């Protein structure tokens, strides 16, 4: 049995069933008068059946050997996602310039392990450059923070 195959397949079964149920509630209509739910219902049912068959296969295949480095490798992934969430939460509160600067310094300096001099210089350069391109050249209104930029 392979959990690595079984777990995602089971999630797909759940998604497929949810789609089918939601579509059923939308109203299937009749075959010669298809309602808004008919097409998504066909999708949901097909997805459920296909992923059930993947689930069945997952019981038969051998378990993949677990990798010891897996957990260590996940760290940069978590860090990048955290940085993205920070940016999304902060953008309209502290403004484009400050938000972008902090985001880049964090990723370049901490995660990218560049020297602080390189990280700060590059961050400042990219921030100013992207500000000029988006705000001045393309004339897009970027969020302004409490400090006025």
């Amino acid at each position: 049995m392979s959990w690595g195959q079984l777990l995602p397949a089971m999630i797909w079964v759940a998604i497929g069933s949810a789609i089918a149920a939601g579509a059923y509630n939308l109203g299937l209509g009749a075959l010669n008068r298809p309602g808004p739910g008919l097409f998504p219902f066909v999708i949901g049912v097909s997805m459920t059946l296909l992923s059930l068959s993947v689930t069945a296969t997952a019981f038969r295949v051998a378990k993949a050997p677990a990798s010891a480095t897996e957990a260590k490798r996940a760290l940069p992934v978590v860090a990048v996602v955290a940085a993205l969430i920070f940016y999304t939460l902060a953008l309209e509160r502290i403004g484009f310039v400050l938000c972008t600067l902090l985001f880049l310094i964090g990723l370049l300096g901490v995660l990218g392990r560049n020297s602080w001099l390189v990280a700060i210089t590059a961050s400042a350069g990219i921030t100013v450059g992207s500000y000029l391109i988006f705000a001045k050249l393309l004339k897009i209104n970027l969020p302004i923070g409490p400090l006025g930029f």
Partner: protein
Amino acid sequence: MDTLGHLLHGFSVTLQPHNLLYCFLGVFGGTLVGVLPGLGPQSAIVLLLPVAVYLEPVSAIIMLAGVYYGSMYGGSTTSILVNIPGEGASVVTCIDGHQMALQGRAGPALGIAAFGSFIAGTFGLLLLTLAGGPIADFALRFGPPEYFALMCLALVILINLSGTSLRKGLISALAGLFLGTIGLDLVTGQPRFALGLSVLYDGIGLIPVIMGLYGVAEVLINVEQGLARTVAPGRIRNILPTRDDWRRSAGPITRGTLLGSLLGTLPGAGVVLASFLSYTLERRVAKNPERFGHGAIEGVAGPESANNAAAQCGFIPLLSLGIPANVATALLLGAFVILGVQPSPTLINTHPDLFWGTVASMYVGNVMLLVLNLPLIGLWVQILRIPYSMLFPGVLLFGLIGVYIVNTSIAEVWIMIMFGLIGYVMKKTDYEFAPMVLAMVIAPIFENAFRQSLILSGGSFSIFVTQPLAAFLVACAAIALVLQLIPQIRQITGTLEK
């Protein structure tokens, strides 16, 4: 003669200074992103899409088309110099191209790739120019069942080539079709799967989804594999291929061009298959095939020609049928829709500026690429030296701002992050998201064809097999499905024998 007149009109659109500028920005930006490690044509189109929606449709499509074929050029450069394919189509170019580079013949390899791409791309364009109109005329006779069958065929072929198992590919495609149904139902005006969120009422935005998948998820996969990159290309000399190189490459370029044109036109097949088959073909027809894998220039010339011919011919189904041939053209189709134009067989008559302007711009763009790339090789080599640890924050930033500015919506940025995670998990669990993207883009026309067919037939599914053309296309899709099943049948019988 009529075609020539239309084409000349197209050139009059393309040669306007601002369109020339966007064409240049497109091919330059495309090559740039194609050269950057870990970013292929899809990422290139996705990253520049938010900027393009600020332009008028003709300029936007000229630029995005340039990004697409420009990034194909860029991809071959990284394959040859540092053995990292920028995209699937340049995987085979690595084999002999990088060997040539190790033997100090990087220059001729890059040169023949550029010339081969130019020749093949221009041939593909001629085909588009001549066949685009007649195919569109023919397709005017297509009804809903034919469209439904054609899209089934495109999806099945794409799933076959996406490198995952048939069932996982189908699940991914179904997920994409579902994503395409979110929002107000076009027929009844009823909201579907919107969960009461206003951001979902107009449908889930294509830009945040694809930016999540091709921007964020790709970065997550790459940072997980480590940020260090050790390869540094040497100096490039003698870019021009010798007379002997040309003699060896003439056949492969010709065969690659024809093969690529054929496969590129087929919905779903696309560029990757073209370059793989070209490599296999060249090794088979070669007098001494043992040279392949040790720096044979034929192994660069053939596949590079094939993938560029296929890339150009992918515009035939896109512009004359409104059906994407691969993921990159699906993204272009999405761009058309965002810009307010729905590609279909009538596009050539209703938007002649757009159709012929785009076609003409590709002739110009191909020349630009050839002229640009040979002298600028030095610049691309410098760009290759940018370490990934410097690059990925920029990609993420561009994604964040790009998604935000399209509708000034933070909610869409959250959708991007969510699809970044979804794409990452899908890749980790062996579900390719390419079928999902293609399916999501075609979902509205797919569902419409499905419903219209049922109404036409009075509720009978037999309409898909009683109409001759639809039946033929359904049969093709069925054959493509069965072909994919055969290895699995073998696998099952294999386990039974044990």
